[in-house]
């Protein structure tokens, strides 16, 4: 219970600091402060004064901060300078697309990465282990950008099996409700649903693959190293001496003790995974938050950057802290400081 309270206040402190940082950002951005906050560039002087009234720029910093929090809570997140579109609406469309890619890549990394890592860790020094190690070292030292380009040249241009850009062929007019393409198709009333599914899958294969390979390689490396360490521990030898089979030992003792120390490291990989997804989005023009933020940079659309940064870092922060809390709660023996080095 003490652990829960400690993590709760950590969460609150981090959220507060993030809010504070995103509040300060417009003051740091170049250009006129009012445009950076509101997104509307005042044409005339009296419009400027009216806007300052609305955004309480004339009052003290604390009022502004209070107003900022209040406007965040009741949903008017401001307007983007480039095309005056409502930021909340844009984010609701963009963020689920990124989450979708991250989720599928993470799924692949966990479903394939961890078992293969265990397998090669257990059956050490044989051809399977050697090939897995080479794949993993090559995998995580591949720059994601180049991997995507190679996939495009091979699968899209050479064999023309897979499409290059977007989440679905634009000719399928799928209204976006949840933002997750597969669910949207299911709920949309379009006629050729089967075609739409097939096409959405086609658009999904390349981006997910190019992101998943790097993360799976990292997962393999961590799990393999961890299981090899655990297998040499005394309690494993003691279990062997009690005559359990290799598989029993692995499932009863090896699995849990191998996973617990590396969970914080796997969580760290989620943040690198999100960076990779944001980069991949620009290449495959996947309408996610990464592409949206980078377009915002090119168009110097500061309100968008501010809100985008806030949303993404809040989600990542919340995710990492909850997973850290779960691992800490699950693992009784772990003292506070000890966690496996890479």
């Amino acid at each position, binding site marked *: 219970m003490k652990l829960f309270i400690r993590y709760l206040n950590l969460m609150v402190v981090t959220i507060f600091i993030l809010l504070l940082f995103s509040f300060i950002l417009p003051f740091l951005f170049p250009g006129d402060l009012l445009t950076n906050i509101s997104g509307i560039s005042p044409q005339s002087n009296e419009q400027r004064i009216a806007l300052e009234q609305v955004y309480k720029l004339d009052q003290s910093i604390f009022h502004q901060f209070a107003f900022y929090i209040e406007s965040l809570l009741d949903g008017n997140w401001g307007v*983007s300078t*480039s*095309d005056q*579109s409502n930021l909340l609406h*844009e984010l609701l*469309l963009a963020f689920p697309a990124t989450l979708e890619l991250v989720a599928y890549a993470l799924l692949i990394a966990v*479903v*394939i990465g961890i*078992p293969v890592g265990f397998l090669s860790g257990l059956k050490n020094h044989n051809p399977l282990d050697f090939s897995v190690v080479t794949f993993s070292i090559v995998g995580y030292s591949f720059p994601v950008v180049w991997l995507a380009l190679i996939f*495009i040249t091979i*699968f*899209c*241009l050479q064999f*023309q*099996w*897979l*499409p*290059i*850009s*977007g989440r679905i*062929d*634009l*000719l399928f*007019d799928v209204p976006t409700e949840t933002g997750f393409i597969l669910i949207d198709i299911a709920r949309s009333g379009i006629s050729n649903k089967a*075609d739409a599914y*097939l*096409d959405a*899958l*086609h658009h999904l*294969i390349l981006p997910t693959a190019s992101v998943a390979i790097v993360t799976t390689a990292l997962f393999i490396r961590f799990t393999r190293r961890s299981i090899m360490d655990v297998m040499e521990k005394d309690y494993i030898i003691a279990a062997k001496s009690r005559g359990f*089979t290799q*598989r*029993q030992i692995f*499932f009863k003792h090896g699995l849990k003790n191998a996973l617990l120390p590396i969970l914080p490291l796997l969580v760290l990989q989620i943040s690198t995974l999100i960076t990779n997804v944001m980069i991949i989005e620009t290449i495959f*023009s996947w*309408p996610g938050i990464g*592409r*949206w933020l980078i*377009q915002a940079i*090119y*168009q*110097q659309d500061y309100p968008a950057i501010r809100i985008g940064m806030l949303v993404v870092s809040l989600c990542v922060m919340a995710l990492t802290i909850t997973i850290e809390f779960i691992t800490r709660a699950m693992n009784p023996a772990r003292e506070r400081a000890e966690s496996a080095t890479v």
Partner: protein
Amino acid sequence: MALRRSTFKSGLCVMMITAISTTLLGCAKPSLNNINAMTYCSESNPGSFNPQLDTSSTTADASAHQIYDRLLEFNPSNGLIEPGLASSWLVSADGLTYTFQLRSGVEFHNTSYFSPSRTFNADDVVFSIDRWRDKSHPYHHVNGGSYPYFDSLRLDERIKSVERINGYRVEITLYIPDSSFLANLATDFSVILSEEYAIELMTNGRPADLDRFPIGTGPYKFREFRQNQHIRFERHEDYFLPTTGPQQLVFDITNKGSLRMAKLITGECDAVAFPSQSDLAVIQEREELTLLQKPGLNIGFWAFNASKAPFDNPKVRRALALAIDKTSLLDAVYLGQATRAKSLVPSASWAYQSTAKELGYNPVRARELLDEADVPNDFTMNIWAMPVQRAYNPNAMKMAQLMKSYLADVGVNVNIVSYDWNIFRENLRLGMHDSVLIGWNADNGDPDNFYRPLLTCEAIPSGTNRAMWCNPEYDELIEQALLTDDFALRTAFYHQANKLLFEQMPLVPIAHAFQYQAIRADIENMEVNPFGGIRFDSVTRTKK
């Protein structure tokens, strides 16, 4: 214990099956082209959906030909003026009054955000023209209030009055005769809006939506626009001309030229805007792609900001012009696909002057001129290279880098500046540049469409005069050229203007490029429009 062993093994083979099935899935490429729809890869976001408000051809592509109609139209093959919404027109003897007989039974778009109650009539024409002509018009200051094309031509001062004679007849009177007036009414910018929609929006207090959710009489209705992603159009079923165009039209916004080319190859786009020069050979090789080309009515130039020292001194401008080797630029950037530009007007126009004088490549003379104008040896200037591709300049960034090395030979350091396209044009209008690599696509066959918007004094506030160069003698010549209809007399005036431009050299004409259109092989009767822009209303797809 046996149970545990089997789960481990079965887990493994389930994974194998999913992996294999996904790759198999990859092969069965869904055949999309049976749906009567078409995708066009455009190069950037349109500024707005009303071409009156900005001259960028991206906006014109996304709106002018698809959503709106004009009183008069250009015939793409011979460039002559043909009836559009106006079925016939009468010009008075003194050339001051024009009366237009309008077509009846033309339906406006019926969309989710507006359903028209009446068909097109004279009120719409009066509303559309008065909006940019009359400063006191309620809609004049909506969405910025600047109409670059019309401001640069000072058309609002030339038109005395626009009256509605009866439901289907409009009469426009001018102060002084203007032979290019009809041509200007046929350009992409003079579109006909819906007055009824404007009134409805004004009553609802949302006037700005007129240019963001457009309503027109054109072949396609506007459905949806997602910034940086796509624009969706739907065919206007009761369009007054017979159309065989696709049921659904999607503009897929792709900034990078190479990505557009890749999408063309994989079939995700049926037509591509501004293919890059280096890929033209690739398109001709592949049999599933075809390349349409036509000598374009455009010009790519290097404009100096004449309002800024030291570029206000003609000697400096002449020296810089001498310092660059145009032939190598043509080879490297246009890969020989363009003709060398001597003056503003390309050979396709009747006012073309083949004997126009031209500066060669003479770095030594350039250095002498720079010393005479006491420009220091390590003088630094910036060249603004436009980020998007255009027929008249397929790769401004590459051209800037080439010029940088030439200018370095004469002791001039260059740093290359580029922004996002909408911000780039906004900063150009404010004159923040030293020099800029840009160009101009003609909108009608009239040479005045080159001389007036590019270099006259009135064109400076509207932002089309990139050189910020104001010369009363030059303006006088252009005015006189407009007073007569006789081609020979107008050509003489334009030749004098060319001589003046050669001496002052506000901008260095570089090339007149071909107009290209890259499309999939199964797309038929798509025409290349010499004035740029793309039309889909007559395009069909052959069933394979």
